[in-house]
C-alpha cells in the first residue's frame, strides 16, 4: 500500500475540540482501511493568507500532519469527507515525500557541442 501524507489545517479552536476533530479524522481514515503511522502537530500559526471556508474568514489555524498507508481509492473518499467537515479549513493528501538523499555528485558540465548537432538515430 502506498504511503500518503495528509497536510491538515484546522480551525483555531480550544484543545478538547481540536482533539475531537483529529480523533474523527483518524477514525475515518481507519474505517476506509488505512494504517496511521504518525500524527504530528506543527503548531498553531497565523495563516499565510486569509482563507474563506464554511462561511468563515480564517486568519489562524492549527497545522497537523498525518502519515498513513492506505489503498489508492482512499484519496478521493477522504477528500470528500474532509471537505464536509466544518472544522477543517484546508486538507491535502500527497504521496509521502520519502527523503531522497541521493548522493548528489554535483553539477555535471553540459556538453554543448553534442547538443548543437542533431543525432542521427
Amino acid at each position: 500500500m502506498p504511503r500518503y501524507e495528509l497536510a491538515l489545517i484546522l480551525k483555531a479552536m480550544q484543545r478538547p475540540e481540536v482533539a475531537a476533530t483529529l480523533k474523527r479524522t483518524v477514525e475515518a481514515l481507519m474505517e476506509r482501511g488505512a494504517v496511521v503511522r504518525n500524527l504530528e502537530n506543527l503548531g498553531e500559526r497565523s495563516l499565510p493568507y486569509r482563507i474563506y471556508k464554511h462561511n468563515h474568514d480564517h486568519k489562524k489555524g492549527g497545522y497537523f500532519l498525518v502519515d498513513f498507508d492506505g489503498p489508492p481509492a482512499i484519496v478521493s473518499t477522504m477528500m470528500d469527507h474532509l471537505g464536509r467537515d466544518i472544522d477543517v479549513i484546508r486538507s491535502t493528501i500527497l504521496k509521502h515525500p520519502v527523503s531522497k538523499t541521493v548522493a548528489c555528485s554535483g553539477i555535471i558540465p553540459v556538453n554543448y557541442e553534442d547538443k548543437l548537432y542533431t543525432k542521427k538515430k
Partner: protein
Amino acid sequence: MRTLLRRRRQQLPDGCREGSVGRVMAVTRGWGRLQQILAAGEGSSAVLWRRGYSSQQEQVSCNVDLPVEMENPYKEPPKRCVLCGINVDYKNVQLLSQFISPYTGRIYGRHITGLCAKKQKEISKAIKRAHVIGFMPVAYKDPIFLNDPKICDIRHPE
C-alpha cells in the same frame, strides 16, 4: 637503385627502424616505391600517405619518454550548487523563502539563485505546493524570514 637501399638499411641499428621507410620513399618513386613499402612493412599500417612516419608500435617500443595515458590527476571535483545533497521539502518554509523576492514573493530564476537544474525545479515545485497547501504566503515573504542569510545574487534598487 636496389643496391643503394640495401646499404642504407644495414647502417641502421637493430630493432629500431625509425625513418627507414621515409628514406625508402625519398629514394624511390612511383610504383617502385609502393613495392618497397609493401615489402618492407611488417608493423607499418597505412603508410602510403604517411611521409616520413614509421609505425606507432615501433615508436612506443623505442622511446620510453613518451607520455603515458592516464586520467587527468589535476581534475577538479565537479562544481556543486548550494543545495547539493540537501533535501527540499514543501514544509521547510524558511528554506523556500530564501529563493523568493521579499517584495513580490516571486521565485527567482536560475541566473539569480545559482542552483543546478534539478534543484531549481525541486525548489520551484515545492514553493508552488506550499502556496496551495497553505504553508507559505504567495505575494510577499514572511517578515520573520526577512533577516535570513542571503543566498541569491540580487541587488534590489533602493
